[in-house]
């Protein structure tokens, strides 16, 4: 099919944003695909959250009440896989899809059909992952999300669950690579005139680095999964010590994915709150160039830290991986000063997207400080695989990324649909989510320090573990209330349809310079692009940099 054909079959320009189910299934429009990613990912979030609820219900008190050990092991395995691979990362892909072309003034992604294919690989991979859990006959995957052999090998996990999971993850990995190619190509080649790389909005920069990390990190993981599949089904011995293999090799390959992956989970949402904070502070971002350099540094360093997951194996160079891990704390810390600098001297309005961004900063700092503790090998010897670690990464992924997801939803919802979510309900959602989150995860630091290992279905009484576990489980009730309230808001807002206008917040980047929702081709005309905030410059021409200067020149 030629390009002309494709345009002929597409919906009319300026036409219906929605369309019937067929229009959605066959769409190659980046905005529709982006929304499909986000909605699908959020649906997986609800499933993963339900699994977390079951986990916390089981751990609320000592003994096994709700589920047996086998079911419990499947619960936490699938919870981890869903939240990482089916929720947070694809939600970031969805946002990137929706926003990147709009932010750089492009009509679509570089490869629209590859884009659609990537979505369907992701959605299909997700279905396989779900099948691998509870739909298999007595063989649900129960190995922990990182599938360590020999436990995930043929002898100890003979069921079909891990095989389905491997196929599912392979599809998701391919989907990530497709999305990565698309994001990088789009950002490099489809920028509107005037949109130099040093004028790329921060969110766009962050998804570019995220995409590159996906391209680097996923292929080795697929290699590891395929070798594992050979071991499981074809008599391979790659990771079997009895046959001369070594399970440590798997750990290296897996964490070479696994650690960049955590930056894949957080970087897009660093981008999100960095878009939001200046808008609600009514001043430009502080330290754009430094922020971009910090993001690039995080990307570069994040592929050199993987073996800090292996400090306790005794077979890696702990000082090297510790040093790189400490180093990555610096560019991450720098971002806090960008955010503070962006609020400093500003005029702060605490609208819902800003509230979630503030929550992000408050929570993520704790995730960061505890992350520095875990970067120290001797402290890791004590804290690794304890609930302290569990709490640490929930402070980054939930306290950071998921707060970023809600910030993004509340910020861009009016752009995507043309009507608003309720400010009043949104405040309640934020308050419940913030309190519920800290109530759930703060006690896990305590119980981890008291020696509770992760991934246990049961614990003995009298170890000081009972109270923190109960509090943590009650926290989930508050978290669930927040999510339910959000869903009520999301569905009722459709009926209320409070009109948003094209630019409800006084936004800075190009997506606010088109209609809400944007037309199929995104822009009928573009404003002049002289900085990373063209919509801001349009409203404040007196502050806009004059054309022709380099970014560094206009900033110093």
């Amino acid at each position, binding site marked *: 099919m030629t390009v002309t054909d494709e345009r002929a079959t597409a919906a009319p320009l300026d036409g219906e944003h929605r369309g019937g189910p067929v229009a959605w299934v066959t769409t190659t429009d980046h905005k529709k695909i982006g929304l499909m990613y986000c909605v699908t990912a959020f649906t997986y979030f609800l499933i993963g959250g339900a699994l977390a609820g079951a986990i916390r219900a089981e751990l609320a008190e000592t003994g*096994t009440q709700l589920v047996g*050990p086998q079911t419990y*092991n499947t619960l936490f395995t699938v919870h981890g896989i869903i939240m990482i691979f089916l929720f947070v990362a694809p939600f970031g892909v969805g946002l990137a899809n929706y926003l990147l072309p709009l932010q750089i003034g492009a009509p679509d992604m570089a490869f629209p059909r590859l884009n659609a294919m990537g979505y369907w690989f992701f959605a299909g991979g997700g279905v396989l992952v779900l099948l691998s859990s509870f739909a298999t006959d007595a063989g649900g995957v*129960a190995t922990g999300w990182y599938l*360590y052999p*020999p436990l995930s090998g043929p002898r*100890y996990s003979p069921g079909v669950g891990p095989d389905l999971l491997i196929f599912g993850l392979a599809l998701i990995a391919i989907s990530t690579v497709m999305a990565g190619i698309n994001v990088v190509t789009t950002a490099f080649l489809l920028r509107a005139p005037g949109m130099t790389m040093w004028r790329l909005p921060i969110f766009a920069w962050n998804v570019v680095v995220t995409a590159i990390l996906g391209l680097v990190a996923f292929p080795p993981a697929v290699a590891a999964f395929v070798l594992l599949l050979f071991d499981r089904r074809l008599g391979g011995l790659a990771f079997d010590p*009895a046959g001369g293999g*070594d*399970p*440590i090799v798997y750990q290296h390959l897996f964490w070479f994915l696994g650690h960049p992956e955590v930056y894949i989970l957080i970087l897009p949402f660093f981008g999100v709150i960095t878009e939001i904070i200046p808008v609600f*502070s*009514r*001043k430009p*971002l502080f330290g*754009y*160039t*430094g922020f971009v350099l910090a993001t690039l540094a995080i990307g570069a360093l994040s592929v050199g830290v993987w073996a800090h997951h292996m400090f*306790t*194996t*005794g077979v890696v160079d702990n000082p090297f991986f510790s040093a790189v891990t*400490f*180093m990555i*704390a*610096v560019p991450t810390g*720098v971002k*806090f*000063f960008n*955010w*503070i*600098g962006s609020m*400093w*001297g500003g*005029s*702060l309005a605490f609208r819902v997207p800003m509230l979630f961004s503030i929550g992000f900063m*408050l929570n993520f*700092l704790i995730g960061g*400080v505890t992350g*520095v*503790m875990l970067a*120290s*090998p*001797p402290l890791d*010897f*004590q804290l*690794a*695989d304890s609930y302290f670690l569990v709490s640490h990464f929930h402070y980054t992924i939930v306290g950071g990324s998921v707060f970023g997801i809600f910030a993004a939803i509340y910020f861009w919802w009016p752009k995507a649909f043309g009507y608003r979510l309720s400010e009043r309900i949104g405040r309640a959602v934020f308050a419940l989510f913030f309190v519920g989150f800290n109530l759930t995860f703060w006690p896990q*630091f*305590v119980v981890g320090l008291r*020696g509770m*290992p*992760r991934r*246990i*279905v*049961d614990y003995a009484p009298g*170890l000081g573990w009972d109270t923190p576990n109960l509090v943590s489980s009650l926290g989930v009730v508050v978290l669930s209330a927040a999510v339910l309230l959000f869903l009520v808001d999301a569905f009722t807002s459709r009926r209320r349809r409070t009109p948003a206008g094209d630019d409800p917040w006084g936004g800075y980047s190009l997506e606010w310079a088109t209609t809400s929702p944007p037309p199929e081709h995104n822009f009928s005309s573009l404003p002049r692009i002289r900085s990373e905030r063209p919509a801001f410059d349009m409203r*404040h021409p007196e*502050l806009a940099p004059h054309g022709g200067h380099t970014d560094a020149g206009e*900033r*110093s």
Partner: protein
Amino acid sequence: MRRRTTQIAAIACLACATACSSFGMPRGSTEQGEAIFGLWQIFFWAGIGVAAIVYGLIGWSLIRYRRRNADEELGRVFYANLPLEIVYTAVPVLIVIALFVVSIGTEDRASSVSATPDVTLRAEAFSWGWRFGFPDEGIEVVSEPSGQGVPGPEILLPLGRTTRIELTSNDVIHAFWVHDFLYKRDAIPGHVNEFDVTPTELGTYHGVCSEFCGIHHAYMTFTVRVVQPDEFEAWLSGAAAIGEALA
């Protein structure tokens, strides 16, 4: 009466201060663990310092710069400040260099193995239990088949002596973790991990498998009792005698 109240208050304060400065971490019942505990305090104080500064600046911004006037058009517009940016990059670099140096120093102390350990303990993890052996004495302590309510095996270690632990697994990956020793190592099939423990306090310590290993992972516990060396010797010879009788 008043004096008593003062005394109680003083004791309570002291207890609180002691508890607080440990930041929830046990103080370490081995020489290796004590070193790690010291490191933990350094990190926690550094963390408090960093968090105080960052939270302070965020809190100040939120309060001082909140919008008071709804139609205020703009905040104070500025874009960058190179000297400030250099400072807030360089200071964290110095902090992490310092933390790295003390970490590696501590790791050398906590993970160094003595050339002449007093006792050698061979610990083999399996699904789901432990086989502890003192090969020099020909002694073995093995788990009962694991499961809910089955107590794990108990071993004794001598106070003040250095015990070399040779850790491995004969099936999947497990890990040996005694919480009060502030130390864990993975038990990996095909590998033998060696580390030393030198207990500094008498007591009974709870040990667990800390690497997820399958269905009875939660119940793969053990107990370490640190006793005086002569009691340890007596236990060894007694256990050896039982072993011979069984053989």
